[in-house]
């Protein structure tokens, strides 16, 4: 019964999406007031029905309804409650339902927080969101219905054991909030083009939405990488897997978009470019969905694959990109901005930022799809992996980091070399000295890459500090806008991130070793003693659990790496034992038993790896600060006041 309610709600949501797309868009174009007014109620209803559909599926999972095919495939009677909830998005159909539900959440948020924006604009934005919603709901209903019934099964199969983990339970919703969130700046850009009003106001409306989407994307990607680190037991945190790339590309373009929107709002420049970035950011989200969901790439994450789905998304993707680019071409002339700036100016620095980020995106895209192209030409199978991506990523992001530091100190419109140099001189000296000295004195051995990484981190922190001082020269501490703090935090996050990546990749040490209870091994100055190993049994798995005591001087910690075999799958899974620290992680994974009570054990010493995720958290915090800048709130309160005044006037005349 409940699944049928969900099914009907989903169909109704599709109907409402059609209404939400047609009436507001047509009404805005034809100037029919009553049609324009349909937008907000439609978006609200859409959310209501999506929540009913989503809730129904969740209920089916919690209720062990194994007559629903999707539930029977992705759950079983022994699955703990929390993973029965996260199992809702553990497979293809549920992921799509989550996608569409989150889209409805974003649409609702737009209808709620857009009081300061003219109704016609809001109608267009919600109309575009409705169009996207039609695409995804049709996709769900036609190719991937989560509510499909089968004869009642005695028990379900199981949720992929990999997904039975907290990190991966929350990773998809966060990531999708980001992915789908990019639809909002996209809708704003399309709406602005439809209305022929690409002005500073449009950029200002788009900015907080872009920041919020970006912040969710940042958190979502970090969660994925953190999960890969502790769950897969290979000690890495990023593999440039196509699915990782699929989430990273929209992030890169969204980052470029945030910067470009700043220029468009403040200086009225880069309008056409900003529109293009908004289109591409969302298109890459769709492309990511296509890559993950179509199974066109074989990768760790491709849990689902079916060509009909691939063709549908590809068609949808072609429609979205083709349609928006056609509109862009038609409106191209009116979007041009004629704003002048010098070669050395804040604008130029942000343009450099944009160019480098887009080239990185292109590189990631090229590396991701090249094997497909290579194969399609009949040149055989090819792998493009970490060595390729790492190389170009470093080549392209080092200038990005240098430019980041200098860029935040440049003036808008025009600046001089001497002026810039006088501002960065101290930072330059400190970062070179600190990079070399810290590497030589604190690290096990001197390497150029470590010095470069530390130097860049220090450079970013020093220049950001200088930018804060410049702000303080002009105004009091409390009157520095939040948007500035957002930028400062995000940049400092980049510094932590850069140092973390560099030191982890240069100085990590690992050792695979045979250890029997009572034996020990020394790695990175730490003594790893293998105390004992026990058998364990969980709700839906059994396995072994080791006890390893790590000591160094006063320091002592006990780790419990596990090896589990889930009843539903023959493949064993590792649960690494990790001691996380600010300057290093100690990581122990269990391998195979080697006889005589001895086990193969993998030990890792990973310096500064936490800085990677710490950096992303600081970046996300920056995104939050920027999105909650007072001027956006002021914009809203001003609109409220105006409406109240209008109401009063109407009341007085009546």
């Amino acid at each position, binding site marked *: 019964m409940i699944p049928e309610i969900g099914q009907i709600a989903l169909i109704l949501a599709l109907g409402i999406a059609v209404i939400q797309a047609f009436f507001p868009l047509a009404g805005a174009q034809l100037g029919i007031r009553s049609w324009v007014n349909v937008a907000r109620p439609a978006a609200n209803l859409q959310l209501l029905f999506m929540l009913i559909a989503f809730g129904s599926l969740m209920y089916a999972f919690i209720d062990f309804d194994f007559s629903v095919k999707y539930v029977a495939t992705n759950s079983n009677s022994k699955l703990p409650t929390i993973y029965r909830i996260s199992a809702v998005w553990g497979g293809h159909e549920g992921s799509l339902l989550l996608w569409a539900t989150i889209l409805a959440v974003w649409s609702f948020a737009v209808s709620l927080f857009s009081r300061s924006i003219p109704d016609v604009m809001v109608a267009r934005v919600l109309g575009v969101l409705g169009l996207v919603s039609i695409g995804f709901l049709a996709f769900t209903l036609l190719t991937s219905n989560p509510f499909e019934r089968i004869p009642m099964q005695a028990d379900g199969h199981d949720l992929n054991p990999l997904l039975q983990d907290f990190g991966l339970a929350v990773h998809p919703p966060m990531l999708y909030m980001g992915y789908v969130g990019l639809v909002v700046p996209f809708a704003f850009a399309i709406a602005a083009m439809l209305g022929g009003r690409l002005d500073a106001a449009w950029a200002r409306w788009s900015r907080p939405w872009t920041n919020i989407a970006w912040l969710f994307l940042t958190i979502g990607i970090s969660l994925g990488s953190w999960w890969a680190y502790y769950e897969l037991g*290979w000690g890495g945190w990023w593999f440039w897997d196509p699915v990782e790339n699929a989430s990273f590309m929209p992030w890169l373009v969204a980052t470029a978009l945030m910067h470009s929107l700043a220029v468009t709002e403040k200086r009225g420049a880069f309008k056409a470019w900003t529109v293009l970035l908004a289109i591409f950011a969302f298109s890459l989200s769709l492309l990511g969905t296509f890559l993950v969901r179509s199974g066109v790439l074989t990768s760790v994450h491709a849990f689902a694959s079916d060509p009909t789905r691939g063709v549908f998304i590809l068609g949808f993707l072609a429609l979205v990109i083709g349609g928006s680019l056609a509109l862009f071409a038609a409106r191209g002339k009116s979007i041009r901005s004629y704003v002048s700036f010098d070669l050395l100016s804040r604008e130029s620095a942000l343009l450099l930022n944009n160019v480098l980020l887009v080239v990185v995106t292109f*590189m990631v895209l090229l590396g991701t799809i*090249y094997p497909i192209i290579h194969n399609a*030409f009949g040149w055989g199978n090819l792998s493009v992996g970490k060595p*390729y991506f790492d190389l170009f990523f470093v080549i392209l992001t080092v200038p990005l980091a240098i430019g980041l530091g200098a860029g935040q100190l440049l003036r808008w419109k025009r600046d001089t070399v001497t002026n810039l140099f006088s501002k960065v001189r101290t930072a330059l000296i400190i970062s070179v000295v600190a990079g070399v000295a810290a590497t030589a004195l604190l690290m096990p051995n001197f390497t150029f890459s470590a010095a470069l990484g530390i130097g860049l981190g220090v450079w970013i922190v020093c220049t950001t500090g200088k930018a804060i001082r410049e702000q303080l020269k002009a105004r009091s501490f409390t009157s520095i806008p939040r948007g500035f703090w957002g930028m400062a935090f995000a940049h400092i996050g980049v510094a932590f991130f850069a140092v973390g990546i560099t030191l982890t990749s240069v100085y990590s040490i690992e050792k*695979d070793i045979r250890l029997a209870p009572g034996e020990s091994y020394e790695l990175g100055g730490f003594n790893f003693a293998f105390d004992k190993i026990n058998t364990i049994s969980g709700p839906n798995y059994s396995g072994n659990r080791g006890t390893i005591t790590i000591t160094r001087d006063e320091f002592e910690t006990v780790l419990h790496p596990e090896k589990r075999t889930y009843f539903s799958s023959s493949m064993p899974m590792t649960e690494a034992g990790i001691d996380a620290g600010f300057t290093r992680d100690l990581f122990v994974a269990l391998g195979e038993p080697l006889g005589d009570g001895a086990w193969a*054990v993998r030990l890792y010493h990973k310096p500064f790896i936490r800085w990677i995720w710490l950096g992303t958290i600081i970046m996300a915090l920056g995104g939050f600060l920027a999105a909650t800048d007072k001027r956006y709130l002021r914009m809203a309160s001003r609109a409220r006041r105006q409406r109240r005044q209008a109401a009063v006037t109407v009341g007085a005349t009546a």
Partner: protein
Amino acid sequence: MNRMLYQLPLALLLLIFTLPLFAGIETYTFETPEQERIYHKLTEELRCLVCQNQNIAGSNAELAQDLRKKAYEQVKQGKSEDEVVKWMVDRYGDFVLYRPPVKATTLFLWVGPLLFLLIAFVVLWRIGRTRRNQSSETDPVDEQSLEQARHMLEKKES
């Protein structure tokens, strides 16, 4: 035909090995740290052909175990990194390499990013030049009146 022959067993193997998901751990010992370094680099950069995008260090599929063993034995015999790589490519093709070789069919892959960067800068430079020429004539608002306007707006807001 050749390609199909090559892919068929691969596709079948993909069906059999669904997600072998934990790192394989052997307790190999090495004579020199250099040998150990080469071995680790090889296991990082060689692909486990039957897995879904994993290197042989990160997989415990039988093939990955076997390739690790082959890599280990050859490194221990004193072979260089290149020699082991060549041995692997001779048997499994370029697919086994995560660092694709530079050759005619991969040329665009390797020069693409830098080419794109170059094109981007050329386009920017040209736009910048035309814009500077135009702007001297058409930039109608000077900084001072803009500042005045901003001032008036802010007054109205507060």
